[in-house]
């Protein structure tokens, strides 16, 4: 068992709470930095995707997990980021500027999408974001002079200050650096007043506003931030795939992004990374498993079925997601042998004041 004695307020603000965390995150960091030496070419490619989807996951987690606003249209922000990057790169804009523009443009689109969030809640907000996804998809298909229509658009490798990042490992370091930066930005925000205002809106809008939280401002801000992160993810995605077309940003892609958050664990930044890793690795595991399964089972629909089952199973048995499961396992060993089954069960509160308006 580990006892943390708190002697200064700074201890609660610091990034790492104790030496154990420094050690394990350090080890993880080293392993990731050394990935080009130990990972196969194939695995490197998966790591690219995990990084990209983690960034998108952070964005969605800020919105869904911390501000409590649902979005079923995040693939549209991915598209906005990807197309902005593709067009700016074609126009010869340097990468540092173009990715910032992708984030900024995506954020401003996010503000527009966030506007209905001031009036809509729950399922209605989901429907309006879903409609937005369809609109963006349609624009990407029809505006052929700009986007190349369904014929798609080619994107070449990133060139950073005149240095072309053509190899897998160079692009990997770029993705990894951006993932770490985005993660740090999210952590910083969550330990400052803005992040707390998000959480307040998630848990009780009425009392958030009584505490002086401007609901309109912070909901819009959350949408903008979420869109900006997704835009960054989209820009990297464009470079990774090197070819973008509207059918990569459909409603199904949006649902896949929401799955990252739910599988990983709603309300935990770790969840975004775990969820991203999960949805990248699972299809690979399924395709490996297909070799050993009878041909009647090993059809193309298998992946959809497994995804659906995993999602339903998690919602039923582990609403806190993969990270929640990990927390339980860790607590079990930390407290051994004093862990009780009900430790993470939350007391139901039946008393809720009448929801005002």
């Amino acid at each position, binding site marked *: 068992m580990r006892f943390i004695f708190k002697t200064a*307020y*700074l201890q*609660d*603000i610091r990034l790492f709470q104790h030496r154990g965390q420094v050690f394990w995150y350090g080890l993880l960091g080293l392993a990731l930095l050394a990935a080009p030496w130990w990972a196969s070419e194939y695995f490197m490619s998966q790591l690219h995707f995990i990084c990209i989807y983690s960034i998108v996951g952070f964005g969605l987690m800020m919105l869904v997990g911390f501000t409590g606003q649902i979005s079923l249209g995040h693939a549209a922000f991915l598209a906005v980021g990807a197309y902005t990057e593709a067009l700016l790169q074609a126009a010869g804009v340097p990468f540092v500027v173009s990715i910032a523009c992708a984030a900024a443009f995506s954020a401003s689109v996010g503000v527009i999408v966030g506007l209905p969030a001031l009036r809509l809640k729950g399922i209605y907000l989901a429907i309006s974001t879903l409609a937005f996804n369809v609109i963006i998809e349609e624009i990407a298909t029809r505006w052929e002079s700009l986007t190349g229509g369904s014929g798609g658009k080619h994107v070449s490798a990133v060139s950073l200050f005149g240095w072309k990042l053509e190899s897998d490992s160079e692009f990997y370091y770029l993705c990894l650096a951006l993932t770490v930066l985005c993660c740090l*930005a999210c952590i*910083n*925000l969550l*330990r*400052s*007043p*803005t*992040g*707390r*205002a998000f*959480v*307040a809106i*998630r*848990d*009780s809008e*009425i*009392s*958030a*506003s*009584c*505490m*002086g*939280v*401007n*609901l309109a401002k912070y909901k819009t*801000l959350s949408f903008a931030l979420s869109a900006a992160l997704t835009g960054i993810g989209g820009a990297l995605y464009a470079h990774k795939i090197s070819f973008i077309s509207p059918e990569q940003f459909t409603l199904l892609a949006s649902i896949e992004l929401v799955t990252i958050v739910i599988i990983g664990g709603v*309300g935990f930044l770790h969840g975004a990374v775990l969820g991203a890793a999960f949805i990248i690795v699972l299809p690979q595991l399924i395709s490996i498993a297909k070799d050993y399964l009878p041909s009647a089972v090993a059809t193309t629909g298998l992946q959809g079925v497994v995804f659906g089952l995993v999602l339903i199973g998690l919602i039923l048995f582990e609403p806190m997601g993969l990270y929640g499961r990990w927390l339980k396992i860790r607590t079990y060993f930390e407290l051994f042998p004093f862990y009780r089954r009900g430790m993470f069960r*939350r*007391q139901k*509160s039946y*008393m*809720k*004041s*009448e929801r*005002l*308006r």
Partner: protein
Amino acid sequence: MSFFKVEQLGIRFGGVVAVNDVSFEVNRGEVFTIIGPNGAGKTTIFNLVGLIYPPTSGRIEFEGRELTGMAPHRVAEFGIARTFQNIELFEHASVLQNLLIGRHRHRATSLWQELLFLPSVRRREIEAREAVEKVIDFLELAKYRDSLVAGLPYGVRKVVELGRALATEPKLLLLDEPSSGLNPEETDDMAFWIEDIKKLLGITVLMVEHDMNLVSRVSDRVLALNMGEVIAEGTAAEVQSHPAVIEAYLGGAVK
């Protein structure tokens, strides 16, 4: 200039007149209580004062400024904090985080500073924490500091909500039935705290309450409402013995 003034306040929901022509003044440093039978319009007045409902008539003034027509979050900026009858805490956050949200109106850092977590943000965070720790000390919440609100018993949540309101450093504190759902001991504690809030912190309290023991113990002045209208105003003893109040609670005398 009066500290807090409500003038001819009224609101109707469709054909129902919930509050009609209610006027009262709260002086700086007193505990002012609104009583009345169920459905008298007490909580509605609170929601009007908190700007959650727009009034159909009348005006609300705080330190000479008119509040009516402002966005609800502005109320906190002026130094008015409230608690809710049935507790509206941030369930999935710790007690400490709940209280820190109370510091929201004192924030002074921009989004960019926060994204980078500059030393200025760190310093402000420590200051916020120090202010919150004072409230934790005051309300004896130290042992619940890091627990999630969702797992706390009802009585403690009630105190946490009071603490969250105090963390905003209000000038006027609105308490909506501070003793509802509390056992006699906890109600007793609540009475001590309300007295201390008035005497030690110098915060003016406007509250709605049913428990007459608590009311007569802490209130300087009491206002009785029935059917959305003022029926009596005065000290607790005066109001309790007022014939209109007795009639409102117990019904009229048989003739």
